[in-house]
């Protein structure tokens, strides 16, 4: 059910931006979503098709740009993309990181007519 609430927020933002631009139709919504976000693309699309009925965003394409998780090692400052369940630094093998990318979760732009 997570995606339902999120999709509603997303639709609200897109419709508000379209209203400000006095657009007649929203044709595309460009989303940027980090890999750490627990969002299933198909699920968002499903809810979007339902929620956007009778709005000017009905039929809009959702484009998902996924940002890979990136970590910075607190020991040697290397920046790396972790393996599936291995967050150890490939350079110094320490497990002591901060997350620097992968938590993105925003609307980058919308395309309107």
């Amino acid at each position, binding site marked *: 059910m*997570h995606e339902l609430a999120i999709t509603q927020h997303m639709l609200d933002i897109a419709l508000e931006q*379209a209203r400000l*631009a006095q657009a007649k139709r929203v044709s595309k919504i460009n989303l940027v979503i980090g890999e*750490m976000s*627990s969002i299933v693309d198909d699920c968002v699309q499903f809810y979007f098709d339902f929620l956007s009925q009778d709005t000017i965003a009905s039929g809009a394409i959702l484009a998902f740009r996924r940002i890979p998780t990136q970590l910075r090692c607190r020991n040697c400052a290397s920046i790396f993309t972790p393996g599936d369940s291995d967050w150890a630094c490939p350079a110094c093998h320490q497990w*002591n990181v901060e997350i620097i990318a992968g938590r993105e979760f925003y609307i980058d732009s919308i395309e*309107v*007519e």
Partner: protein
Amino acid sequence: MEIKVVQNILSANDQIAAMNRQLLDSHKVFALNLMSSPGSGKTSLILQTIRRLKDRIRIGVIEGDIASHLDADKVNKEGVAAVQINTGGSCHLDANMLSHALENLPLTDIDLLLIENVGNLVCPAEFNLGEHKKVMILSLPEGDDKPYKYPLMFAEADVVLINKVDLSPLLEFNIEVFCQAVRGINHDVTIFPISCKTGDGIDDWVSWLLAEMVH
């Protein structure tokens, strides 16, 4: 025509969370968001905390569940005000749900607000409520590999409580390995091993809580 937006999808939630925080601060209420899997001991921790502290501070509780009033009833039996939020299927609490629950609590009569989130290690990590600290509970039967599987939750937590340590002789949970994994993705986290059943470690938890409330 393309319109640049660059707006966080959860910005509406974050705005309401900021208002919740203001409301809590104006009433000098310290609020904790308790998160864990179902069955790892959120309600037991609340009951233990109430029993230790109810003569010293005024406590309020918000219980988030998909359905039922079982948890709020348990808290009420301890003589503490509890509001139950039924999310009606939603897998997490959000700031808007909390703002409605806050309307139903006597905030001027509360020093510590314990918010029990819906049992889930995924979605609650993504929704700020306006709380002062995020506390997550992981119980021994869940396994010591969970930080690898749910990194966001462990990265978000200010405190991790390892519950059911009384089961340690029966299980292959390696507390040292677990703590190392948690600290590896959350440098500043505070960790307490506890047992809500035997009371082990609860003193340390309560001491931390009282110290944070003074700040």
